[in-house]
């Protein structure tokens, strides 16, 4: 009489625990990292301080210093451009400058000025730019 009771209890417990264990873990493998508000705040500050002077506040390549530059600063909002370049490409040109990747040296290298985190955050911010 005692044994079945205990057995029942144990079976119930194990079954319950097993049930909880087999709860589907949300399929998050494919989820894109959503940038945190903090990352975007830092990215925005970096962009406005270092990039907007030439690339323009909204990324259209129309910053006030743009007219001095030949070749003209890139329109960062251009969907073609956004599609073509990976985050790593963008980080690379920011880090090594135009000269570092075979483009215009008028785009300076920021790898000694900005840290990796700032570069990552500004790439996140650039991804949200719509240009003009």
């Amino acid at each position: 009489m005692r044994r079945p009771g205990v057995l029942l209890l144990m079976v119930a417990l194990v079954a319950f625990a097993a049930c909880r264990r087999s709860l589907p873990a949300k399929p998050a493998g494919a989820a894109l990292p959503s940038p945190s508000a903090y990352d975007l705040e830092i990215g925005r500050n970096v962009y406005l301080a270092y990039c907007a002077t030439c690339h323009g506040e909204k990324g259209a390549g129309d910053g006030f210093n743009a007219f001095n530059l030949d070749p003209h600063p890139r329109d960062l909002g251009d969907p073609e451009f956004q599609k073509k370049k990976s985050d790593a490409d963008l980080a690379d040109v920011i880090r090594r400058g135009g000269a570092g990747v075979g483009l215009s040296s008028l785009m300076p290298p920021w790898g000694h000025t900005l840290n990796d985190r700032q570069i990552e955050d500004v790439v996140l911010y650039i991804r949200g730019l719509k240009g003009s």
Partner: protein
Amino acid sequence: MGVAMGERPAGMTEEPMPLRRLFAASSLLFLLVLAVSPAKNALRPYRFLQRQFRDLGMSRATSLKAAEAYANQPVAIRQIWLRDFDNRVDRCTTCHLGVADPVMIGAPEPFRTHPKTAHTPDDFDRIGCTSCHGGQGLATSKEDAHGLSKEDAAPMTPAAFIQSGCGRCHVSRSVPDAPTLSAGRALVERAGCYACHSVRGHESYRSEAPPLDTVSLKTGGMWLRGWLENPKAVDPNATMPNFHLSADDIRALSHYLFSQPVPDGLARSIEAASREPAGDPAAGKRIFSESRCITCHTLDGKGNGSGPELSKIASAATRGWLIAFLRDPHAFNPRTRMPRYNFSESDVRDIVAYFEEELRDFEAPEEILQPLRVNQTLAEKGAILFRNAGCGSCHVSGSTNEVEKFGPDLDGFGDRRAASLDFGRRHDLPRTVPSWLVAKIESPRSFADGLKMPSYGFDEEQKRAIVTALLSNGAQPVPEKYRHHAPETVAMIPGGRVGELFSRYRCLSCHQVGNRGDDISTAPLTFEGSKVRREWLIEYLLLPYTLRPILPERMPILKMSRDEATLLADAIKTFYVDPAIAADPFVGRPASDRDPAEGERLYTTLGCRGCHIIGASGGYVGPPLTDTSKRLEPGWIFHFLKNPQVWRADLRCPNYGLTDTDALRLTAYLETLGSQAAAKPPSAGKESPR
């Protein structure tokens, strides 16, 4: 009976059964009771979460070894113990298992990787979690840990105000990587919160609000009424908040202010000035623009805005007062940031003539500057009101230094409990400290009748910043080991005649010296002596010109004498030098490092002309370099090129990671600029094709 008889033996034979049954039942009960605790433990949510995390990790792992590592993670409470940080024990990582795990980027909470910050992912073991986020580190259930279950337990800081956590340790005004906190701290100071509320570390704060003893000679009753009703409606730059005064209160206060005796000296100078002949408005307009007044003031909204808007100034203040004030602003308000320009007698008359001609409210009635005839009864009523409303906390009379802290002190808001706050009528608010603070700043008097705090009209971002700053004040300072002070730099202001000049021209209103001074100018003076040449500095002080055309703020022409300029330049060359900067950077270097031709080549290949002008071509971001050799010291150029951000952390000139040789060659090239009869612009168009 037969039945009864039949029952009894049955009862007799069955007698041991109930006992056995009782025994069985009680042992079962006993076992159940024994099982409660292990069962409760086995069912604690963190165990399920840890198993869920294990599965998630195995499904996300990119190698067999990594998957095995997830599979072998024991189910257990995890904790970070900080013995030297108030003996903190943070068990948050018991559920937030992926905070330091890059595989968990974008994973669902509570497993997601912590966003990267200056301290993550490297400093979890040094700083823990609750030191920034608040909450209950020891708890292992979500409700308890997040501080949602008990009223007296510190809840977590909501994400919107999370930068308050940075401010617990970072005590300086500006904190890199915490822009909201920095903005909040600056706003709290600028809005004058410290004038009424005492806050640790800001006891010596004095408002810049003007003493009110010359009001009766400055303005008229009508203007004053408009101002008291809503200062920001009169001047959008006004720092004075809205006190929501009734018409009666405004009348009483006006009479009180007009009853104030004007100090003899000031009264004489105002009256004498009002009798002076009229000036030349055209000349005044020229002097006004040369003096770069909009570096602080605004004209129709254009300008820096740290000083009052001037487009209607002649309808706000009388001619005599304006003339006397411009001649010696510090006699009217010893705490003003405005410099005392070295204007001539007629300069000031001309400027005020320009004000009267162009900078007045053309729609204002004639009597806007009509003085008020004082009614003693009303003035006495106004005196009581002045005291009760706390006006004296900001408008300290020139002679006293005693300030009454009128409001409650704001220390320790970061550790206050919502239960200790008076929500009064605001039943609509969530019972949390941040929501109380936001509402208090938004409409301070909505909590109860008779409250005195004025309203400031801050926008959403500003409110968030201010609340972040207030929440960064803990009840106790963090242990010294964790406190991060601003780096110590020279903050010495010379005394004597040089000190008088620094004060007269209010250098610190725009320039920083070490940790002191405001930040309107982009050029701190801390190491200015190592940077610029003495002769250039003297001429610049006499006739400042625009170094960076993109900045709206320009160094004003203060009209100082050559003697004064020389004295200041010599003091700067003596005191504000960085011993790390060599006068001659080429000492001990091979002659090839001095090659200006190589330097010029570098100038072109690095793309310097994108931002700098030499001769006629180049960009407008940095200062023109045409006359570099006349302006800058070679030692400083080299030092700057090696690491521009040493000069100022937010400087935009990129650090190119130059070798000593390259930096020296560039220095050698820049040193040739301005020393020849005609500076040759570098050959352009050599950069690689796009």
